[in-house]
């Protein structure tokens, strides 16, 4: 399965969906900063991996899938939920990459230019996440039968 980029897909994104993500992202960034200032970086740092976006993206994804099915005349509520579950599995894979991101940032930020260190950490996140995503296809780390309907569902995702 090839990974590609389809800029026309952005037309489907509604303005309020972007606004919700902007608000969630901005809020959690501001709150993390406040927590770090009040309780110190050890406590505040935990919240850099707080699931601030997943609830919004999974809810929107479920809604999109249900709308799509409704337009096609199919009243199947399970489809949207399966799509959101697939999004959750993606988040689980991405969170393993996030451990790599944090490790690299922890080690490189004090030693080098901050922007370069964060870029290197981002590259590591992408590399680990893609690697595990590809391994998933060979079912090297999924339990038998755990992939369920969600793993094969050709759904559209609005994760972010």
């Amino acid at each position, binding site marked *: 399965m090839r990974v590609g980029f389809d800029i026309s897909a952005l037309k489907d994104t509604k303005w309020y969906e972007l606004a919700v993500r902007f608000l969630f992202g901005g809020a959690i960034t501001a709150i993390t900063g406040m927590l770090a200032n009040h309780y110190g970086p050890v406590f505040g740092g935990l919240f850099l991996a707080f699931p601030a976006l997943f609830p919004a993206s999974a809810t929107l994804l479920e809604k999109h899938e249900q709308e799509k099915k409704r337009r096609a005349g199919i009243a199947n509520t399970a489809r949207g939920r399966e799509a959101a579950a697939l999004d959750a599995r993606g988040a689980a894979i991405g969170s393993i990459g996030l451990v790599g991101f944090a490790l690299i940032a922890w080690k490189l*930020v004090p030693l080098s230019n901050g922007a370069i260190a964060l870029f290197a950490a981002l590259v590591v996140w992408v590399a680990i996440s893609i690697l595990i995503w590809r391994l998933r296809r060979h079912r090297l780390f999924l339990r038998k039968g755990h992939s369920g309907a969600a793993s094969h569902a050709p759904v559209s995702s609005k994760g972010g």
Partner: protein
Amino acid sequence: MQILFRFIIGGLVVSLFAAFADALKPKSFAGLFAAAPSVAIGTLGLTILSEGKLFAATEARSMIFGALALFFYAMAAMRLMMRYKLNAAPAAFSAIAVWIICGMGIWYVWLR
């Protein structure tokens, strides 16, 4: 003022990642971006500028454990949706309890 600045930068970085994810194919791949380091990039970048590199590095070290908590959060949310047939919103919001228990537990035992 600094909080407002953080809010705007954080919101912009997160929106950028979200828009990028929307345009990705196949769509199952875009799910990875539900755990993109968008908040971390915005926060760490601003922290490096305002508090210094050591402060930011300490935050990044704690983030390792936050990311582990995120893994358990995502697995819990997936399980709530697939096994217990919960819709996305109740599953995603109730699973935040898993993140809090894991994150705070790790902080209390190892980081405090």
